[in-house]
């Protein structure tokens, strides 16, 4: 898997309340609507200007706080392919993987990448190419790689359960 896209860069300890505010968790259910509130309390420009294929670069402890899965799905619905950070909070890390958004831990790349630049990520070679150089990151474990490759946990389980042929309903609605 290879990604090419523009970077939105943020700082340390970005929490899930600013990625997707809690007040919307039970009432905003449409994917397009969820995407509109992405990073609302962190960067009011993000949701309106982000393009499919964009990537996020964060500092340490990206996605700490609430377990709300919309903090991952709002990024997915905006078209974000990967989040590169110095470290991730664990539930959000799982939520990203389970929704097919790639979490990449690479502190040196985070320091090197500039906000707004366009970068290349190669998941198979586990490298990031940006203006100032190339960076290696540790490969994802095979379990996680399979989930992402399949498009997420639900798709993977449907394959495992032999229910892939059934129509896939659109999943709406929220939760903290």
């Amino acid at each position, binding site marked *: 898997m290879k990604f090419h896209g523009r970077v939105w860069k943020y700082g340390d*300890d970005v929490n899930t309340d600013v990625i997707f505010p*809690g007040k919307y968790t039970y009432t905003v259910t449409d994917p397009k609507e969820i995407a509109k509130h992405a990073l609302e309390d962190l960067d009011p420009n993000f949701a309106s200007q982000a393009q499919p294929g964009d990537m996020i670069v964060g500092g340490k402890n990206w996605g700490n706080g609430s377990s709300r899965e919309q903090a991952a799905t709002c990024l997915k619905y905006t078209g974000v392919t990967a989040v590169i950070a110095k470290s991730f909070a664990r539930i959000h890390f799982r*939520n990203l993987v*389970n929704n097919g958004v790639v979490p990449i831990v690479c502190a040196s790349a985070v320091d090197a990448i500039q906000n707004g630049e366009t970068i290349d990520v190669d998941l198979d070679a586990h490298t990031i190419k940006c203006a100032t150089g190339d960076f290696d990151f540790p490969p994802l474990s095979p379990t996680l790689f399979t989930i992402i490759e399949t498009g997420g946990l639900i798709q993977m389980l*449907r394959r495992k359960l032999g229910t892939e042929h059934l129509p896939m309903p659109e999943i709406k609605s929220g939760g903290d």
Partner: protein
Amino acid sequence: MSGKTFAEKALARASGQSQVVAGQIVDAVPDAVMSHDNSAAISKIFRALGVARVKYPARIAIALDHAVPAPTTAHAVNHIEIRKFVEEQGIEKFFEVGRGISHQVLSEEVVVLPGQLILGADSHTTTYGWMGAFGAGIGRSEAAAIWATGELWLRVPESMKIIVDGELPRGVTSKDLCLRIIGDMKADGGLYMSVEFHGSTISSMSIESRIVIPNMMAEFGAKNAYLPPDEKVFEWIAERQVKSQKLKAKSESLISNLQSLALYPDADAIYAATYRYDASTLEPYVACPHRVDNVKPLSQVRGTKIQQAFLGTCTNGRLEDLAAAAEILRGKTVARGTRMLVIPASSQVLSEAIARGYIQTFIEAGAVVGVPGCGPCVGNHMGVPAPGEVTISTMNRNFRGRMGTRDSDNYLASPAVVAASAVVGAIADPREIYQDQVTR
């Protein structure tokens, strides 16, 4: 062969293996899976999996708590979807609007036992560590996956040990201990760790004070937290088992069953880090906006004007917390220009607080008492602040926007500090009010 940590023992048991080591990925079979108002969303994901029935209905526990009673039609519709699913799937451990906050209710109803594994679609599922269970938060897709298959992949975490000895000074609580730890080591200080607590301060604490600790460890980045279960824990659980299983009396066999389930780390287990705290040197602390690790001693923020004082949540909405606040508020009134909101963590807490006269005290002091549940903790309703307002609360997190508007401040403190601040109308030290009570 070195010894095993609690996390290694608990996840070995949950995955049916004789032993596992930190770093390993296992397929774990949780004894319980919890969710709340997000269960409607989970049920939709469950349906997308294409299976008709949940695998183990008896292992599923759902409590409505996040927006109760429903503040809007949309919330009411969300609740209806959950009730329908619960009926259709024969889920017996379902707790209605008003029963209380999931983590408190599931503890009272004994849906999980020491040594067992509980995964929950809520970040504060770490709470169950108070009884020596392995509790960890997961996402809603993962909860749906467990409903369908009964299992989920987990990585066995490394462990960190925090040893606390000594006596906490009067007016200093387990909440202050947690704020101090998070302030010292920051919000990612326990990132991905199983955080074990040991020491004489912990073992001499009441159960209610203990519950605060693993709850707050979600704010430390922990995967789970663990307090070694002792006789006090077994007694507390056995009493509730008598109630929930409608037994005649507490028997020796209940206790010995709990003892046999309990897991303890080996003396030579391997820890990533060990820290020590002397409880007698601690003081009341406050987490300042907008980060739980922005912790200052109370003395440094004393006098900050507030408009709302909120006592409640899964962190500090229990009887002991209400007692500490009632002690401050007895015969006093909430300051003009300030509102005080009390939301008991469960109906059992509320009922006992009525019996002990605490609720009367709150009402006479001019406080508002709300329905057991999460209240304004997640910005849905029942006491959300206006832009520009300042709240002091017993909540576990104070992130920007959490209570509904990004333009309000939230300070986190212990119940006594919150009550004292309500009386003064500004962040206040309860020890000064105790002093005042003595001199009068």
